[in-house]
């Protein structure tokens, strides 16, 4: 199955040090929160950016969704802090 593209924004992007990456598609039934917990174990920047999921919001294929949403067949996951508008 195709890889999953993850986009990072704002301080999440700064801490991780990249704006996007492709990862192997997680197992069927994996939620965004579960993937975030897994990514957070990758090391410094990831732990700093993703260690506190309370501060994070997400979008799947450009739609805001709660973190307990199952990733399923989505192509693009975005992880970011709460938006601060215009």
């Amino acid at each position, binding site marked *: 199955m195709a890889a999953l593209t993850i*986009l990072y*924004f*704002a*301080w999440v*992007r700064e801490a991780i040090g990249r704006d996007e990456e492709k990862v192997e598609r997680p197992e069927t039934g994996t939620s965004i929160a579960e993937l975030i917990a897994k990514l957070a174990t990758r090391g410094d920047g990831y732990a700093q950016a993703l260690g506190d999921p309370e501060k994070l919001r997400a*979008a799947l294929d*450009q*739609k805001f969704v709660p973190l307990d949403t199952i990733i399923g067949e989505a192509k*693009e996951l*975005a992880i*970011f*802090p*709460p*938006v*601060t*508008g*215009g």
Partner: protein
Amino acid sequence: MSRVSIQAEDFDIAAELAALEACGGGGVASFTGIVRGGEGLTALELHHYPAMTMAQVGRIVEDAMARWPLLGVRVIHRYGRLAPGERIVFVGTASRHRTAALESCAFLIDWLKSHAPFWKKEHFSDGSARWVEARVEDDAKARGWLE
């Protein structure tokens, strides 16, 4: 007429208002957001999620047009690095009567302020910088419109 632009460049308010006035209504309402200075702020850096911004703003403009009898809607939002005093966002609405124009304009800017996928970083004269945190009251205001 409805148009949305997400752009780095500044915009010409007089031209935007003239286009809304030409929609044939009896009133035009608008809101212009300006980068607020003070506390040593030297620049505001705006990031956004391009694929999502256009889709989301387009949807909320459709909502506004379904809710109020509007003849024209114009939304412009800038991104990039902006100095205090620079224009950052514009919302303009045209309708036959003032109530629809004023209410829909307030609805759109409240939504943009709280739900549009933008993030702001403040830069200060001492060289420090910080990401702006989401405001709880903005979130509550936008929810109020949707209830």
